[in-house]
């Protein structure tokens, strides 16, 4: 029974430095509620304001990505997307990881876009951000398509990501930002 092993589950999360994790249907209420909790938690533990705001900003982009792009949802029009979000701290560094199912057909485009992004330096990221913001030609994008660039600009190391094939139709996509 899971309730008997819940402590060991929590203990395992604590050992990984996980501050917060959510797995399941993600809605805008989670974005607001958890975002605010996360900010207060960091303020209470005297985290530098700049760092706290970066963690918050990346959290928002990660969660809104899951809501907008997860292919696992009750129906296509649903305001919720299924996915997983993990926020933690390890040796003074924060990590924010987001994961969700995507269609296999989207993998190669996303993978090459991200490869391009992680190879960029600060100035290139800024130029790319401004260019994307001005000329938004990505029809597939519900947001401005700027989320990953914003995350890359806020993170102190290049983003890392992975794709795991689930079946003939879907893959699991995950992306991590470190601060």
């Amino acid at each position, binding site marked *: 029974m899971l309730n008997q092993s819940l402590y060991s589950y929590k203990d395992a999360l604590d050992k990984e430095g996980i501050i917060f994790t959510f797995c399941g249907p993600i809605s805008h209420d989670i*974005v*607001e509620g958890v975002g*605010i909790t996360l900010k207060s938690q960091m303020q209470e533990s005297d985290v530098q*304001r700049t760092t706290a*705001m970066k963690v918050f900003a990346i959290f928002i982009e990660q969660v*809104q990505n899951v809501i907008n792009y997860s292919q696992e949802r009750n129906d296509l029009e649903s305001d919720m997307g299924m996915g997983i979000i993990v926020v933690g701290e390890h040796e003074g560094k924060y990590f924010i990881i987001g994961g969700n199912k995507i269609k296999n057909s989207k993998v190669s485009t996303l993978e090459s876009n991200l490869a391009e992004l992680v190879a960029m330096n600060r100035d290139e990221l800024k130029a790319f951000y*401004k260019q994307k913001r001005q000329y938004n030609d990505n029809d597939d994008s519900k*947001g401005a398509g700027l989320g990953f660039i914003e995350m890359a600009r806020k993170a102190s190391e290049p983003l890392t990501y992975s794709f795991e094939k689930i079946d003939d139709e879907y893959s699991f996509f995950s992306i991590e930002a470190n601060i």
Partner: protein
Amino acid sequence: MTRLQIEKTKSSPEIDFNPQTHTHRILGESYPENTTQFYDPVLDWINSYLAEGYEGEMTFNIELIYFNSSSSKILLDIFDMLDETKNDKIRVNWIHDEDDEAMEEYGEEFEEDIKHIKFNIVTK
């Protein structure tokens, strides 16, 4: 032209656009559930307001603590609309906390592309 007032929520800013005083403001945090839905009335209002062709000073005070990437796109759309009037009586005040360097940098990035209107980065 009627005044546009929208109360702030946890994830959307307060909007107060006043066609009598010609001082307008956006205040708070911006990461709404549906950015387009939230900002469409705002963009429509600005469009009609600019079309009236007021000849005096017009001020837009933007005082945001946080905005997400899709709100950033909308802010650019707003500044583009204002700049396209080529009216130097339009002033944008980008207001940020003194110790908020990130917000100052965002302001500078918008400022780089503005050609005609006044764009001031102001600390409070």
